[in-house]
């Protein structure tokens, strides 16, 4: 009885080990067909970035160097980390009225958690998330970005 149990223990143990080896053996033979890792910098050209991927906040400008930001600071208020700082100025419109506009849209990438709350908050869709994700720099100050381009102004008709 004891010997029989002993032998069946040995047999079932060996069997379970061989089953495991069968799996890795199968993977070994299949290795050229299936790869779960990628050669990252090499496949950069063929990589597909999902359009919703959140990498960095950008402010799209059109061909006339115009953006849609009215300087309402909704994004600044929505941000949990103080990532966005908007400095406003007053433009004088052709009709002679003073109109609020952005002077500098400062974006601290190093504080950003890509939570998307600023984009949700923006009433004019002036900012959006870009799909870039390689943000490493040698100096932290390079991560403080100015999103509105030099000499840009607000697009006509955006209120």
């Amino acid at each position: 009885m004891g010997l029989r149990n002993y032998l069946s223990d040995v047999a079932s143990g060996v069997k379970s080990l061989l089953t495991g080896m069968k799996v890795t053996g199968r993977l070994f033979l299949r290795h050229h067909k299936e790869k779960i890792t990628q050669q990252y910098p090499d496949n950069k050209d063929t990589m597909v970035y999902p359009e919703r991927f959140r990498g960095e906040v950008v402010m799209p400008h059109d061909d006339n160097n115009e953006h849609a930001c009215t300087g309402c600071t909704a994004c600044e208020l929505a941000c949990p980390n103080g990532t966005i700082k908007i400095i406003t100025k007053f433009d004088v419109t052709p009709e002679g009225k003073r109109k609020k506009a952005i002077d500098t849209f400062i974006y601290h990438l190093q504080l950003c958690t890509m939570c998307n709350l600023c984009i949700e908050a923006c009433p004019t869709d002036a900012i959006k998330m870009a799909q870039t994700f390689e943000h490493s720099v040698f100096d932290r100050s390079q991560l403080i970005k100015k999103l509105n381009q030099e000499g840009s102004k607000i697009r006509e008709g955006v209120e």
Partner: protein
Amino acid sequence: MYRETEVIQTIPGTDEMVLNIGPQHPATHGVLHLVITLNGEIIKKVEPHLGYIHRSIEKMCESLSYRQFIYSTSRMDYLSSHINNHACALCVEQGLEVEIPRRAQYIRVIMDELTRIASHCLWWGAMAMDVGALTPFFLAFREREMINDIMEETCGARLTMNYMVPGGVMFDLHPNFVGRVKHFIAHFKSKIDEYDELVTGNIIFQNRLKNIGVLRPEDAISYGCSGPTARASGVSCDLRKHMPYEIYPELQFEEVLDNGGDSFARYLVRLTELRQSMHILEQLIDDIPEGDFQAKTKAVLKLPKGEYYQPIETARGEFGVYIVSDGSTTPYRIKFRSPGFSNLSVLDHISRGQKIGDLVAIMGSLDLVIPDIDR
């Protein structure tokens, strides 16, 4: 030439010595620091020292608005960030008393279950790695990667999604979502048997886990264990059944229970939960109702004065959000009841008298995520 060197110190009067495991150690999966007292290989005492990744999220949240604080919970239990966000959103909704659109409820539950699968997959790989098998880790990542890709496409991020907002979800589902989830289900069903063949049935693995770290049901309750850790001891505590939220009452699934209480029972419970989650996904994925994905809420949320507690079943156990509101735009006090904190407290109790190798296996089977413990 020969110099007398200091030898390893033992506790005076005994053969015991103190060994620091962590904060940087392959087995602790993060920055957990355990001070263990050893007699040879036998563990006499385990004393967790926490705080290496403590960020005081509770204090931070006191200065954030009800929309803003949700993102910070993804950084606690980063493996089930969706579910954490879900709990926060539910708690705020409980205070606001908004009706969540049915489509949003479906999306939330699908995301929760996908997150649970991803979390359990990672746990499975890490668990096998803790006991010394390295190949399963990569197999687990193959499946997890598919979920991450699905998440990336719909939610915009792979780990810290911040997809749940008060009133629903942030975006609608991506058009590819349903097809990709179905493909994942079909793929995963064929792979989960490979998991069993490679690891579960393995006699070395079974012997490493069986009768190791036995947690009796009364201890599990007393120590406040939850999730698979408690269910493996036969404590029925699945909040999806007992305090159902969203559309869980309408779903067909079983609460996975095991009476073993040892590490292997915890392992089996999680592995079975993977199958149950797949079952839930199969019920939902075909008929996601049309409609809004977000309820209309005010731009600035204010919770009425009062206290709100919302428990939710994460991959690790009961995650609770306790909001004390004074009626302003920010919470007066937030307490996050994290499952890992209570599950960790049982470690000393169940690992005494075991060996160092067992401690690693027990920690693996408790599925600790350190930022979740430290908060």
